[in-house]
């Protein structure tokens, strides 16, 4: 095992190197570019044996990855923001075809106005596309997810593509010390991809076909089952990961001081760190604060969230997203989970970080305060009176 000082993008690229995809097809977009630059260098210097294909668009990046996956080999691509939206058609195609492609998405604001900084409106707009969605908090988790994702996506019971989200700039471009697993351990953890869902000269197949109303319905049911099938596979994968690499992950969510918390922020991505720090400070003042970090938006951790907050007095959902005219998508999902589980506590939605605007410690304190005292259903945190 080596220890290196790497950015989130660089750490992620190390994880992909260890996963040895056969085909990498990618188109550059800030802030994803460093991932594909590093992978190109690895292919050049021989530390990664992959076909690196310079496609002419994101649509082709995923279309090419689907072709590779349909041939029965491991495929990877990476994108961000407008690129993710440009390939959106292919997202649904890949999940419907049950192609276990892994894609890194650098979370970035969506135009207009143009903005290259981080928010989560790109990936959250694609929750229904049939992809597993994980959100990393730090560079180490990004690397580890890169390695784990293939094992989860390619599992027979899952056969579902996997999108790993890294907050643009805050994670993609921030440097941390990262443990890089050894090749032998990585190979022990992740076996080569084997599938029957592929074109085969000995047993020719017709793939990606049409299916009328009756059959189509059955295929969609199976797709749903595949996504749900990821839940136990994620658990089993993390156990194996801990056994080999010694780092433990906690499944679909990561909870902090929630057991006895009165007020809990539910959030995702890098901002969770500041939420935990703020919870510590509030606890020092005698306020029982807690944090739930959603690690996976799909499959959605409805039971885990309800269980974590069931004894709280109120919850806040902090997200870098807004569904205009309604509320943030994460809030909608969380409320559905609470209602279904019979957890009857007030919940409030806090929108922040759009277009990369900073979320400060005092913003988080204010969220806890408003959650305790009650506030509007949806609050844009830190928006000034003159900005309204």
């Amino acid at each position, binding site marked *: 095992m080596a220890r290196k000082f790497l950015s989130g993008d660089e750490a992620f690229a190390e994880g992909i190197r260890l996963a040895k995809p*056969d*085909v990498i*097809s990618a188109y550059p977009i800030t802030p994803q570019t460093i991932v594909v630059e590093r992978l190109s260098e690895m292919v050049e210097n021989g530390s990664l044996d992959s*076909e690196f*294909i*310079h*496609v*002419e*668009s994101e*649509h*082709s*990046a995923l*279309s*090419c*990855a*689907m*072709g*590779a*996956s*349909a*041939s*029965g*080999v491991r*495929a990877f691509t990476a994108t961000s923001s407008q690129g993710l939206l440009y390939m959106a*058609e*292919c997202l649904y*195609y890949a999940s419907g075809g049950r192609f276990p492609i892994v894609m890194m998405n650098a979370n970035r604001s969506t135009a207009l106005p143009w903005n290259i900084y981080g928010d989560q409106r790109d990936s959250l707009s694609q929750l229904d596309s049939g992809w597993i969605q994980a959100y990393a908090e730090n560079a180490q988790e990004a690397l580890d997810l890169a390695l784990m994702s293939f094992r989860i996506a390619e599992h027979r019971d899952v056969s579902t593509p996997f999108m790993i989200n890294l907050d643009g700039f805050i994670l993609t471009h921030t440097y941390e010390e990262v443990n890089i697993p050894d090749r032998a351990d990585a190979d022990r953890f992740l076996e080569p991809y084997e599938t029957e869902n592929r*074109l*085969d*000269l000995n047993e*020719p*197949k*017709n*793939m*990606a*076909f*049409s*299916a*009328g109303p009756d*059959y189509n319905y059955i295929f969609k049911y199976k797709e749903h089952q595949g996504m749900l099938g990821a839940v136990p596979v994620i658990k089993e994968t993390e156990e194996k990961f801990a056994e080999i690499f010694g780092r433990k992950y906690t499944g679909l969510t990561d909870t902090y001081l929630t057991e006895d918390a009165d007020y809990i922020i539910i959030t995702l991505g890098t901002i969770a760190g500041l939420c935990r720090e703020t919870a510590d400070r509030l606890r020092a003042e005698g306020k029982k604060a807690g944090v739930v970090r959603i690690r996976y938006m799909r499959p959605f951790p409805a039971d885990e969230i309800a269980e974590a907050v069931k004894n709280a007095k109120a919850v806040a959902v902090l997200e870098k997203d807004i569904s205009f005219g309604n509320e943030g998508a994460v809030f909608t999902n969380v409320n559905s989970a609470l209602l279904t589980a019979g957890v009857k506590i007030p919940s409030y939605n806090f929108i922040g970080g759009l277009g990369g605007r900073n979320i400060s410690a005092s913003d988080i304190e204010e969220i806890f305060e408003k959650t305790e005292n009650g506030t509007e259903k949806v609050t844009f945190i830190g928006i000034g009176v003159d900005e309204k």
Partner: protein
Amino acid sequence: MSINAKDLCKDEFFYGHKACAGCGGSLAVRNALKVLGPNAVAVLPAGCMSAVGFNFPQLCFANNAIISTFAGTASMLTGIEAGFRRRGITDFTAVGFAGDGGTADIGIQALSGAIDRNDNIIYICYDNEAYMNTGIQKSGLTPFGAKTTTTPAGKNVHGNIRPKKNMFEIAAAHDIPYAATATVGYMNDFLEKVGKASQIKGTKYIHVIAPCPTGWGIPVSDTIDAAREIVDCGLWYLAEYENGEYNINHNPATFTSVSEYLKKQGRFRHLSDEDIAVIEKSRDKKWEKIRRSWNLK
């Protein structure tokens, strides 16, 4: 590579589909696969051939075949070619069959990317000169004057007002290893070009005219005649691009009547003598250029 009907493989690879009677596109796919054989891996985007061939559980390709996104024929071919190579397989041919809209409009970006990378694939555009699968709408390869459901022929506008995009020369302008034009009306020529393409490494583009009786307004028995006449009257030509040179394969001493070719088809029936004169003039201009600058074989 000489190919004739007698030697053509008796196996059927595209069989039992529900294409319309007289479909030129299905004929092109069926016969091209006979040349390429069982190890052809076919990619077909949304369009007529995928709509008629891939209805689960009735799947009609005997070789490996997959539907791509409408825009993604070439990029999916790229992924398949790379994937098979990674599996150590060498005796296969990645071949795409896309219509005129799937090629010249929505798929042109991916096709250009594949040619730019010189991926080892064959891309066959079966050109029926409009979006036939969706009900005869204008595409970038609909010829001047043609009536479609989105270019109606009225008093003010006589159908489509723009000429066909020149996909053959667009492909050639990438300095592609091999590009060719063909028609299902001269099947031997088309199949020889498919055979030749299969022996060349890198990207190959073949553009084959494939009449659609429904969209063209001709009897279903006239597909082959129309596909011949379009060459005989000079509105289409049989050519190749290789080693950086254009070669014309068939240089008619005289052309048959453009007017007669057009008047047989419902989509052109509204054309005035002036319209036809415009079409003849553009034909003559094209041939003047071909005869001046291409190699005559």
